[in-house]
């Protein structure tokens, strides 16, 4: 546990003693990363805002039960990722029940592809590719590649084994490699 985790635990103790500013300080410290994770998973800044807002409300509600055995970041990210997975699952259920227009819906969302994607720059193209990963792979990819979290922490956030997280990350990279093949070929020239 590093210094910033120690600081987080101090802030939580102050908050539990009734000092409201301490929760504000936790938000200031963690909102940007929580937002980046949510944005990486959902691909939509407004939805990411909603998720982060909801995550902090839930954290505020549940902090009295925080047991100081884990990092606050790990605990908060678990809430954020679960909220994102819930949103993705609900959106997918809507798509599945109306299978008749599945292709049309998905094409509208992801399939402008070729020509449209070609116009996007690398960053946007990667974001577009990431958003097509299966949700759990997406969560692993965003937390590992984008945010640099360790496999152990990601495993703890997702409630999975480290081996499973590594396998997910590997699969995500393979899929992104295929999605970004044109860029890679271009790079090789």
């Amino acid at each position, binding site marked *: 546990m590093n210094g910033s985790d120690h600081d987080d635990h101090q802030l939580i103790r102050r908050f539990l003693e009734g000092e409201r500013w301490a929760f504000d300080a936790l938000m200031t410290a963690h909102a940007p990363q929580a937002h980046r994770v949510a944005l990486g998973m959902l691909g939509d800044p407004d939805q990411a805002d909603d998720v982060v807002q909801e995550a902090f409300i839930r954290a505020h509600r*549940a902090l009295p039960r925080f047991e100081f055995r884990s990092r606050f970041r790990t605990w908060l990210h678990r809430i954020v990722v679960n909220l994102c997975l819930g949103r993705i699952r609900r959106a997918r259920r809507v798509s599945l*029940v109306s299978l008749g227009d599945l292709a049309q819906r*998905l094409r509208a969302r992801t*399939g402008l592809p070729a020509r449209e994607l070609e116009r996007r720059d690398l960053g946007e193209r990667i974001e577009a590719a990431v958003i097509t990963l299966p949700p759990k792979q997406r969560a692993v990819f965003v937390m590992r590649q984008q945010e640099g979290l360790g496999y152990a922490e990601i495993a703890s956030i997702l409630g999975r084994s480290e081996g499973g997280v590594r*396998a997910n990350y590997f699969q995500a*990279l393979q899929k992104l490699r295929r999605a970004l093949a044109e860029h890679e070929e271009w790079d090789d020239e």
Partner: protein
Amino acid sequence: MSRSCREWRGPMLDLLEGELEHDAAAAARVRAHLDACPVCAAEYASLQRTLALLARRPLRDDAERDWDGLRRRVQAEIATDPPRRRFRPAPILAVTAAAAALALVLLWGAGRLTGRGEQRRVLSQIEASGREALADGRAASPQVMDAVLAEDYPVDADVDQLIDDMSADELAALAERLEMLKG
């Protein structure tokens, strides 16, 4: 990639990400495998290029985001939602709570089964529409149909897992291919 090669995926990632810097023996084992296995060597080189490409990605600049607005919205919500203290139930309440929790778990399980039933129904619909197209002679060929089904529905696949693991792109691709089958 063979099963034994799959077991090298984790160590390959560790080597790529510099996680084996302090474990020379492990790094040497991975390198020895890469020297001996062209499949893994190609995979490694390709992943290396992909990671290099990803590293060049400009991340969105979130410095401009309205963090104060976010804090204000959260503060407004929690002003009417005080933190919940740890609940220590009396023994009789604890038994009741445990029974209620068990009932919830059972209900959740039943709901999940229903959800799986829905997924199976949906998959059956997809498959049926493909088979109908084939029966009507609208499908390109039985081989194409079989290839689509074999690729997307491995016989030993867990349907729930299958759906979970399919990305939006994969679902779109499947839907498109089935449209093609319909002619």
